[in-house]
């Protein structure tokens, strides 16, 4: 469509020039989108630091960030709002990037980690560690990432039958997810006291009462794993052409797929261990980013930014928009549901990828 229009605009250009111009335009658009999204995230981050039950002036907040002792603000902003907003951004980045990796790799927007069982694995392990084994901190993250990876590799192994196929992998993932969700429900039902707020963390994702201890591992995971994914982004876009074409173009398909899976699962598992499986963020970030950015460019960074924005805004709405404090996962779940259903209908009609 874009191509046709530009041909009509400039009939004298050669095909190569048209393609080159298209690429320049798409790259420019992607840059713009990234800049705007980043600006929105910064804005949202600042707002969620300043605004709350009590409003603090920017000077006070900056004072807290610089380590000064500001009465009141030191606790509210330094201990409550700052780690919470930071984790919202970090978890959103992780979910967005991990989700879009799976969606692109499996060539199906519905095949996001929260549907094919990877978030369920991390979440079940984290719930088990915290509720049953009563451990906390980094050990939980380690267990969650172990379980997430284990589940991903199990799904991968089970769907291996003379090569892994997207469809089989998705279906097996759904089966595993059902099993793991019932395990999470079991663990929660065993808990001495049914604390609904705490339970929702492991069912839908919740940022209430997070501290730096939970935030730092996510930051480390992001710093380590995001570059790995970005380094693979070329192979990732090739894999959209199908395994045969991709390997003809020189991609070592199985190897690159394994790297992508491990890195993406790592991101998802660390974020899940800290904030729970925030519903639909991994799922929605990719398709929304694809809509904004347009076709033909890597979606990893835009999707990560969209994810961060979703979590940040969802958490802010959940805290203050309703009478009760809603966990962020409920907000993203309810807001995401209509889009999800629209997406299913569109995908089934067109049978296409992102």
């Amino acid at each position: 469509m874009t191509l046709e229009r530009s041909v009509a605009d400039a009939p004298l250009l050669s095909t190569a020039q048209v393609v080159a111009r298209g690429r320049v335009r798409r790259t420019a658009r992607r840059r713009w989108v990234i800049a705007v999204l980043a600006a929105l995230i910064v804005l949202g981050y600042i707002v969620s630091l300043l605004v709350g039950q009590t409003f603090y002036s920017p000077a006070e907040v900056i004072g807290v960030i610089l380590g000064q002792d500001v009465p009141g603000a030191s606790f509210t902003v330094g201990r409550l709002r700052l780690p919470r907003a930071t984790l919202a951004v970090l978890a959103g980045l992780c979910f967005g990037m991990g989700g879009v990796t799976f969606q692109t790799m499996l060539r199906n927007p519905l095949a996001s980690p929260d549907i094919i069982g990877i978030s369920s694995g991390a979440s079940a392990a984290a719930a088990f560690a915290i509720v049953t084994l009563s451990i906390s901190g980094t050990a939980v993250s380690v267990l969650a990432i172990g379980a997430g990876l284990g589940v991903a590799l199990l799904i991968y192994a089970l769907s291996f039958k003379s090569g892994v196929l997207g469809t089989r992998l998705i279906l097996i993932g759904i089966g595993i997810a059902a099993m793991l969700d019932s395990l999470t429900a079991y663990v929660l039902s065993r808990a001495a006291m049914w604390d609904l707020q705490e339970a929702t963390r492991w069912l839908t994702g919740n940022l209430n009462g997070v501290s730096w201890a939970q935030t730092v591992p996510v930051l480390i995971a992001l710093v380590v794993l995001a570059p790995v994914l970005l380094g693979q982004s070329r192979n990732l876009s090739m894999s959209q052409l199908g395994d045969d074409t991709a390997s003809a173009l020189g991609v070592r398909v199985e190897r690159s797929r394994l790297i992508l899976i491990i890195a993406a699962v790592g991101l998802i598992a660390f974020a899940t261990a800290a904030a729970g499986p925030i519903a639909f963020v991994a799922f929605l970030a990719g398709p929304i980013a694809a809509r904004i950015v347009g076709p033909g460019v890597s979606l990893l960074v835009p999707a990560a930014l969209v994810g961060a924005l979703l979590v940040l805004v969802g958490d802010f709405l959940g805290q203050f928009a309703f009478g009760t404090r809603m966990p962020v996962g409920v907000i993203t779940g309810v807001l995401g549901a209509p889009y999800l259903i629209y997406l299913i209908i569109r995908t089934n009609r067109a049978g296409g990828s992102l």
Partner: protein
Amino acid sequence: MTTPTTLNPAASSVAIVRRPKRLRSLWLLVSLAVLAGLMLASVMIGSREVSWAEIMAALGGSIDGFGPAAVATRIPRTLLAVVAGAALALSGAVMQGVTRNPLADPGILGVNVGASLAVVCGMAYFGLTSASEMIWVAIVGAGATAVFVYTIGSLGRGGSTPLKLALAGAATSAALASFVTAVVLPRNDIAEGVRSWQIGGVGGATLESIRVVAPFLLVGLIVSLLSARSLNSLALGDDLAAGLGERVAIARAAAAIGAVVLCGAITAVAGPIGFVGLVVPHACRLIVGVDHRWLLPFSAVLGAALLTGADVLGRIVARPSEIDVGIITALIGAPFFIYIVRRRKVREL
């Protein structure tokens, strides 16, 4: 029955579809016996063992002492497990027939969560507490979800492939589940009721709740069993079924209503229990073949046996407490689901 099949290829294919009648009757008897054994085990086994004498005393109406009292609470539980297993397996078998899709199951189609959402909304906004009102609400929720998931799962090329149906079901379940949380969370007053219902399983059964749900199950049972013949025609494809004189749309709708009533009513009293409807019909097809007139009753019996067995197992492994049947069936069912997916050719997915 042992026709010289090597001479006549047509006869051999008939023999595959129609297992010998005597063999099928034998299997039915065996599974009935297994069911009876499991029911007995379900009454006897628990955190406290009971003796024959105590069971007899309890059946005679006495509740003196721990033994008979334990039996008195285990009897409704056993009954509900039998009824629920039969209803869910039957409903799964009918759904697989109606959709001609091997992965159709109340759990996979998201019907359980639909019923949950309807019940939770009923509790939160309309103050429903009585079991009979909840059954109606659950059936409506289950039906709406089933129609919705099936519709979006069958859009596009190729109709409802297993992949599209399973994805639509999983995605819809996830969406509805967050609505359930959004409804429950602000309402501390109903949270306890919802929680006990959601993980209730068959443990909290009373004779009263079984009595309330019985008429619905009876209707669902009759409708489902009556649709066996038309399901056989539908299995040949819509065109051929119409050619055989079947009114396809009506037959399909009737069978689907039967299935939805069964699983909606059971979800209302026992909470969401997954995978029974998926596993049992597949196992039964291996034993009695694909004729729905045999498959449906056989699924009901085997489903009852599976759920009763799962309930007993849940009480044995986690003594002195117990594991909810829904968790046991998920642990049994998910590997089976994976097995079915792996066995099929890629094109069929």
